[in-house]
């Protein structure tokens, strides 16, 4: 994605709804991209929940959605780790491990960025918390 488009996307996100949920920082809808590089990126929607004991989630809701395998957060440094199956844009099942970090945790515009590895590939991901509950 050209850099100026990223900047525009970021600005559009800044103008997204004001009301963030103020409870567990991971709860809610996250959207962004994962891929091996800038030319090979997959759109990703991740819906996360917290029941007081553990995190659960749904990847790409709709036809072909996937239950999130497992996810953990270490609030001492706001790092996250997850292990799950994903379906990429070609319909291929990929088992991945990912590690990332939350930024702007106190803000409604929080982000989650990090890296992932599968058996054959690796790359990065970038997600932003969307408005709404």
């Amino acid at each position: 994605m050209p850099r100026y488009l990223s900047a525009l996307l970021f600005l559009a996100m800044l103008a997204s709804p004001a009301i963030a949920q103020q409870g567990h920082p991971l709860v809610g809808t996250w959207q962004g991209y994962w891929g091996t590089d800038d030319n090979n990126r997959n759109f990703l929607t991740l819906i996360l929940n917290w029941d007081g004991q553990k995190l659960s989630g749904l990847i790409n809701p709709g036809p072909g959605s996937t239950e999130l395998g497992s996810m953990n957060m270490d609030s001492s440094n706001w790092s996250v780790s997850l292990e799950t199956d994903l379906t990429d844009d070609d319909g291929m099942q990929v088992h991945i491990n990912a590690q990332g970090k939350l930024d702007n945790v106190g803000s409604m515009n929080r982000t989650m960025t990090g890296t992932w590895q599968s058996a054959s590939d690796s790359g990065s991901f970038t997600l932003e918390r969307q408005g709404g509950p």
Partner: protein
Amino acid sequence: MRYMLVRTIVRISRIAVLCGFVEPALAHHPVQAKFDDSRQLELEGQITAIDWSSPHAHIYINVPQDGGTPVNWAIELADPTELEWSGWQPDTLAPGATIRVSGYEARNGSHQIWAEKVLGPDNTEMFMVPDDLIQQKLANRPSGPTPRWPDGQPRLGPAPGQTGYWTAPGKNSLVEDGVNVAFDKHGMLENINDSSKVAPFQDWAHDLYALRQLNDGKDDPLFLYCIPPGGPRQFQVPYGVQFVEERNRDRIFVLMSGGNGNWRLVYTDGREDVTQVSGNDDNPLFYGRSSALWEGDSLVVNTTGFNEGFWFSNGGLPHTRLLELTEKFNRTDLNTLRYEVTVNDPGAYTRPWTSSWDLQWMPGEELPESYCQDNRQ
């Protein structure tokens, strides 16, 4: 350990504040959300307008620029009610008068300043309210027993022919009863190392609370976006609450002056806790769904159905949708309302815990009309 750097920065800015200026009297909410107390500013200019509205009055002045057109600055002051109680009126100074102001600059770089000190044309200090204004107002109240309805039940509102409201909360933050930690009037910890003592937090909830504290409350959705003060916070806001007891309808309106001037409806017939205020699991609310019964002289209110869109306490203690509150209201005499809240939120805390404080009766005064929305400029 990881807080060291930020804490030092916070401390330095507080020291700067203490050395240079007195803390603003009765700053009603974390002005830090809007103003940066590390950016001091002094201005001199001519008054162009005075906006005497709640929650904060504003004086607008034109500040001359070298070789350019003057810049119009908004000077943010205390609440008009408290300004008036301190002897100031909107016509105390007229447009055209020259004033000097020192205070904090707005974080967003706009031409706004939180006034710590206003000097009038003859160099006397103006438009400030004393730190102990509320205590002064409350000092000489007549005392008396709990007012009661003819059947003996305590009145939470005024007796017939009288008026008044509840204000001056005895605590500025939720904190578990029996824990001794110091907060400032905005619910900010005097010592960040006390953060884990405040409540039986889960790890993530503690760390989020500590983060909000280290951010000096600047993420507070009440002050950023006028999001309602749901839960116990409605009894922490500075402008007061009032109870309108409709006994023939088995309900009580809690009228709020702070926040958005909202109301909260409490049903007193113990009705089933379902869809009372169009809330259910799919429509969680800022004030939740409240159902109450009188137990002796205590009104015991059970509330569930909260959303996660707000802070339920000054200072940013987190909660989740699993939050269930049990609030007890006990008017122990004419002037005292004991408020006790038990927080049961297995999403954010390791066990239920209780916090309590007193509210004070402000006799003879009307609950002010005040809208957060009004001043968010």
